[in-house]
């Protein structure tokens, strides 16, 4: 497979063959006023040495999570990425983005996707996983649309315990008006089962929740699964893949669609992206699932091969009937997740999850005992927790950055209702010494 772009000669030859004078002529159908009639406002070109120094200076203007001790989470987590992950995903055959439509030249990519899907199914307890979506938020929004297709109903109930950015993404998706979203306030940092039950009706396609919630709390999914199914609706659950190393998978509680932000599995935080949209469902609903699916089959000679399958759901086959307008996936991040899970293994993932949970609980208790923070919610949590700060959050965070700590997320930035709440995430990378130093700094505030 050659990935060589056209030369100027190639371009001239092609233009001559189709009978136009320039590339611009090919855009004659686009109205003049919709075309950019000036060069892009870019600075002058630089040489490589100069450019490298320039980019380095831009990068240095940021304080990144490796310069300080970070307790930031909220959907993007500071987990360790084993060296093998970068080594594998840097192979040019993987690193070059190419859609594996031609199985005869894409066996490696297709098998990588297939292995990723298989591991994600094991992790979530679900029967089918797609090749991935852009991030947890798009997976969540697509889950709402899928639930409507499956149930032939047009309204979803979304608990406000779900990440606000996931809910905003869903709101963007449904602007076209095909689906109605009813947001239902949470209670004690969890989904409010009674409030959700009160909203249930025969037009509701799904109850949509997350566990862990945006606040890090763990929800009782069993009650929600029964509630949804009794009403003929699906249960959609957002989860955290690392926690699945120690938690019962959502499938156990009757979840019909399980989505997650897969960034914790081998992708760097990278200032918030790219992420990895994990999307899984039950086999019965496979044909309504968005996105790609890689499958394993045998060729005419009986040899094992990998292909994209169930492609009639996709827009490159039938645009007007497609289950989603997403025709791509985050293959490199999915590969990273596959390599990560292979590298750490079942026991390793459990160990990582246990370390995260233990360290988070240690820090939570210690921060509460400083008297500066109090518990916001009584519910159990995984490795992220929200505390109420007694004082000015922004000022506290400024002070602590100067002392080498990202002191959690100020939840006032997400909702005025959450003013005063700070969300802390503690991953396996944090050491006892770092936690104790941080508690010391908080006590000295």
């Amino acid at each position, binding site marked *: 497979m050659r990935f060589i772009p056209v030369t100027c000669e190639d371009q001239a030859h092609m233009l001559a063959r189709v009978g136009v004078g320039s590339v611009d002529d090919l855009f004659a159908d686009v109205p003049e006023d919709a075309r950019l009639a000036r060069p892009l406002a870019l600075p002058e070109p630089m040489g490589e040495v100069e450019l490298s120094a320039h980019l380095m200076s831009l990068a240095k203007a940021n304080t990144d999570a490796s310069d300080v001790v970070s307790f930031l989470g909220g959907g993007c987590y500071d987990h360790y990425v084993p060296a093998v992950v970068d080594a594998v995903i840097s192979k040019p055959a993987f690193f070059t983005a190419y859609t594996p439509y031609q199985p005869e030249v894409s066996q490696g990519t297709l098998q990588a996707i297939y292995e990723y899907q298989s591991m994600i199914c094991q992790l979530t307890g679900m029967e089918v996983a797609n090749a991935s979506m852009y991030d947890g938020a798009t997976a969540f929004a697509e889950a709402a649309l899928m639930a409507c297709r499956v149930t032939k109903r047009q309204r979803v109930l979304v608990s406000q315990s779900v990440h606000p950015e996931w809910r905003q993404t869903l709101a963007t998706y449904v602007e076209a008006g095909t689906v109605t979203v009813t947001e239902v306030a949470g209670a004690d940092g969890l989904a409010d089962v009674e409030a959700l039950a009160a909203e249930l009706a025969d037009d509701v396609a799904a109850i949509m929740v997350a566990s862990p919630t945006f606040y890090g709390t763990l929800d009782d999914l069993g009650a929600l699964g029964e509630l949804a199914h009794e009403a003929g609706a699906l249960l959609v659950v957002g989860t955290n893949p690392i926690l699945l190393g120690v938690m019962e998978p959502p499938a156990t509680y009757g979840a019909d669609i399980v989505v997650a932000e897969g960034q914790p599995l081998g992708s760097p935080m990278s200032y918030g992206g790219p992420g990895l949209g994990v999307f899984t469902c039950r086999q019965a609903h496979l*044909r309504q699932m968005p996105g790609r699916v890689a499958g394993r089959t045998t060729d005419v000679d009986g040899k094992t091969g990998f292909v994209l399958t169930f492609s*009639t759901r996709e827009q490159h*086959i*039938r645009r007007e*009937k497609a289950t989603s307008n997403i025709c791509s996936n985050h293959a490199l991040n999915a590969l990273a997740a596959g390599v990560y899970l292979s590298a750490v293994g079942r026991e390793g993932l459990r160990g990582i999850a246990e370390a995260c949970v233990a360290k988070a609980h240690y820090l939570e208790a210690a921060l509460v005992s400083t008297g500066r923070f109090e518990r916001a919610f009584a519910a159990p949590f995984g490795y992220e927790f929200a505390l109420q700060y007694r004082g000015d959050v922004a000022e506290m965070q400024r002070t602590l950055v100067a002392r080498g700590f990202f002191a959690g997320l100020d939840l006032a930035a997400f909702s005025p209702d959450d003013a005063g709440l700070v969300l802390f995430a503690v991953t396996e990378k944090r050491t006892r010494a770092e936690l104790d130093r941080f508690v010391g700094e908080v006590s000295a505030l």
Partner: protein
Amino acid sequence: MYPKDLKYDREHEWVRIDGDVATIGISHFAQDQLGEVVYVDLPKAGDPINAGDTFGEVESVKSVSELYSPVSGEIVEVNDALDDAPETVNAEPYGDGWMIKVMLSDPAEVDGMMDADGYEAFLAEEA
């Protein structure tokens, strides 16, 4: 290939009339063009249907096609067995591979359909 007791339409559906109920499926030609059928998506019994409406789709290893109803009425029965054995459409397009049964609201609609000879002539024309 094309039973004489059936009526056919230009979308390659066939209709078998039994009193005021029409059984609908796809023709030998249609299943042959599709290739191995892997999935049939059908409506629910009780749904109303109008002539020309799509009532589902049939998917094969190489493509997917809409199913059009040649008649109007109420869907009274759906061949749920195709869920687990869609390949029956290839094996027995006029028998166990049937798709839906419709209680006719306008039996005259069937008169406008082709008989077996007419359908074969139509196929020859199309080829």
